[in-house]
């Protein structure tokens, strides 16, 4: 069993593999940078390219107590063919559901290339015993989920118990087997950008394949500056170790215009190599229809009524 290495008082991560300095983040400056990038004007073919990519990067999500097999089946069908009247619109990257609905989703998307992601580890709070969380992740992996979205224990993090957070990520990563691990930091509960950066590096050190902003259950969820801080952490890890970590902003991204802003942020922070669903995802639900609407507008020059797009 992997042991969390002792993290000395100053919160330094283990040196092997070498990780970047924890450093700090300046709030005013990072918000200014995100704001200035959000003013990029993306038009015509570059807009269409971005919208198409946004669809391909989407984790179409439903995480409600009221989710049923019927709801998830409908969502999965939408995921495979988002716009039945325009088959050039690509399928989304994945559907994201609760563990009990993984079999339904898997059955429905089989063979389509659309992946199935499941939340796990006592989502959304993470406030359960570690053994139960490990067990949940292992079970979800067994069911055949391609990706597992775990939450970190924010209580432990905010109490300064970084070693525990790190250890949990490591052990859940092991329990995931071949499934990809996305680690949700729930940045809306972390309070500062410094904490977001720390939690990002901690999750990456623990073995995250992706880091993800939010559960969608807490406000604020994903924001541009938080995403920028996380992308910069990813960049520092890449430059230091060559490891490519993915990023997933989730929650509160409802409009195509926002999605384009996130892609500009990604493009100017990590470059085109990261502009693939393998390294960037949007966790969203209503975003998809707005993207479809905008894609059709770009192609036909006209806005359609929302009635022409399916609600699932």
């Amino acid at each position, binding site marked *: 069993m992997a042991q969390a290495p002792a993290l000395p008082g100053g919160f330094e991560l283990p040196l092997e593999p070498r990780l970047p300095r924890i450093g700090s983040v300046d709030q005013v400056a990072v918000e200014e940078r995100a704001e200035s990038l959000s003013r990029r004007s993306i*038009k015509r073919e570059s807009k269409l390219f971005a919208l198409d990519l946004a669809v391909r990067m989407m984790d179409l999500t439903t995480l409600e107590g009221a989710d049923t097999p019927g709801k998830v089946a409908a969502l999965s069908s939408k995921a495979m063919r988002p716009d039945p009247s325009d088959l050039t619109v690509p399928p989304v990257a994945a559907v994201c559901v609760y563990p009990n609905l993984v079999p339904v989703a898997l059955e429905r998307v089989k063979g389509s290339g659309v992946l199935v992601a499941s939340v796990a580890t006592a989502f959304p709070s993470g406030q359960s015993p570690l053994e139960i969380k490990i067990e949940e992740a292992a079970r979800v992996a067994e069911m055949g989920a391609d990706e597992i979205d775990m939450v970190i224990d924010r209580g432990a993090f905010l109490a300064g118990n970084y070693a525990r957070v790190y250890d949990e990520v490591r052990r859940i990563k092991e329990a995931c087997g071949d499934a*990809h691990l996305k680690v949700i930091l729930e940045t809306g509960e972390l309070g500062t950008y410094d904490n977001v950066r720390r939690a990002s590096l901690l999750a990456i050190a623990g073995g995250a394949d992706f880091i993800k902003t939010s559960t969608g259950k807490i406000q604020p969820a994903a924001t541009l500056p938080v995403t920028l801080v996380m992308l910069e952490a990813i960049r520092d890890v890449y430059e230091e170790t060559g490891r490519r970590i993915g990023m997933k902003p989730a929650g509160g991204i409802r409009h195509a215009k926002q999605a384009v802003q996130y892609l500009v942020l990604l493009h100017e922070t990590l470059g085109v190599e990261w502009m693939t669903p393998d390294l960037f995802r949007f966790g969203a639900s209503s975003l998809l229809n707005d993207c479809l609407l905008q894609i059709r507008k770009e192609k036909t020059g006209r806005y359609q009524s929302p009635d022409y797009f399916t609600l699932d």
Partner: protein
Amino acid sequence: MTEIEKRQDRSPVPSAFDYAPAPESREIVTLEDRYDLFIGGEWVEPKSGEYAPTISPSSEEPLAEVAYAGAEDVGTAVEAAGEAFEDGWSDITPAERAKYLYRIARILQERSREFAVLESLDGGKPIRESRDVDLPLSAAHFFYYAGWADKLEYAFPNRKPKALGVAGQIIPWNFPLLMLSWKIAPALASGNTVVLKPAESTPLTALLFCDVVRQAELPPGVVNIVTGDGRAGAELVKHPGVDKVAFTGSTDVGKEIQRAVAGTGKKLTLELGGKAANIIFDDAPLDQAVEGIINGIYFNQGHVCCAGSRLLVQESIYEQVIAKLKRRMGTLRVGDPLDKNTDIGAINSKEQLEKIKELVAAGEEEGAEIFQPPCRLPEKGWWFAPTVFTNVAQSYRVAQEEIFGPVLSVLTFRTPDEAVEKANNTPYGLSAGVWTEKGSRILSMAQRLRAGVIWANTYNRFDPASPFGGYKESGFGREGGRHGLEPYMRFE
């Protein structure tokens, strides 16, 4: 095949994400073929009979012909300003003066897109900057000083402040409308009248401002704009009817002006060159510090007197900072100033481009290591790629002289003492930047740096309430804030 390889199969990485052109429309600006001088509220043909074209630096296209004032024209303008001062401007109630300034501020806001487009067209700066920085700040200066107009007694308690009379103001080409606002707003608020000479390469927004002056129904002669070259400036400085000279520009010209006004009793403020140190300590938030470095030197193509043109990096983080800086420079978009996605526009004039090239060549010859990110520069117009020199010694020309272009020189230091010593080791003293997480270090550095403006964990941030000005060869007198009123007042 692993899972990730399968996926990469499925989703090829794009080779580029090119932003389609997003040009701001020029339609909003209507230009005359030829502009005369604005004297006494009227357009007046220059008695000199001279006109010269003003050229768009991004396309080399002549935009309009502009009058070049001679001695006689300058004299007429100063007389018009003197009459306007005697004839009422000095007597109207301060609240009335404030009203005009508020009007001007609001009109500038209303017409900001027009001004922003014209500023980018005539000066070459990216529309992103003229739209988001120059115009909002210009309006903010008028709003700010409008507020002071009827509170001068409170600005200078028990000193009985009085207006001086006619202010002769000469402004540079790097922030044409903003410098006009910095000059005109405090002068009018304190009850003076103005003769202003814009730079010969960027007169158009000042000429459009005449339209604002009329729209605001400012009494004739309170603001006079005389275009022309250095000769007109020299005439303005030496005219006996001028009570106060305010100049922003190069140190050489500043010295000439100081000689010219010596012994005349004219009040003088000079805002001259700079070679600011931007100091990065090893505990700084690095990614934001890199943004600050970029904003410090590449803002407005480096045509900024307070540009952070000397980067001082603590040696322990040198490699990391330089790697981050070079990567970030690769994302700067150089090109059409009117494209909303452009970060770096055109160099303001051919002469300036030559000067930059000359200094960069000197830097290479002296042994500094040059880096420029790959970027395609447009064929027409005057352009210079963002440039950084590493391996620079304090004795190199690129570390000593003001380049006034997108060229950064990087030096290193080991301790705070050494940083202070190197930062202060320059004939200039306009501004400096300090990047550190330690609040106490910010305060101690600010105390020890000999510079008029010190930014902590930010750079090139301006506010009308904050005084701005230099030490040593960077000039004297302050513009902005309550301090900015003082040079326009006499006290009993």
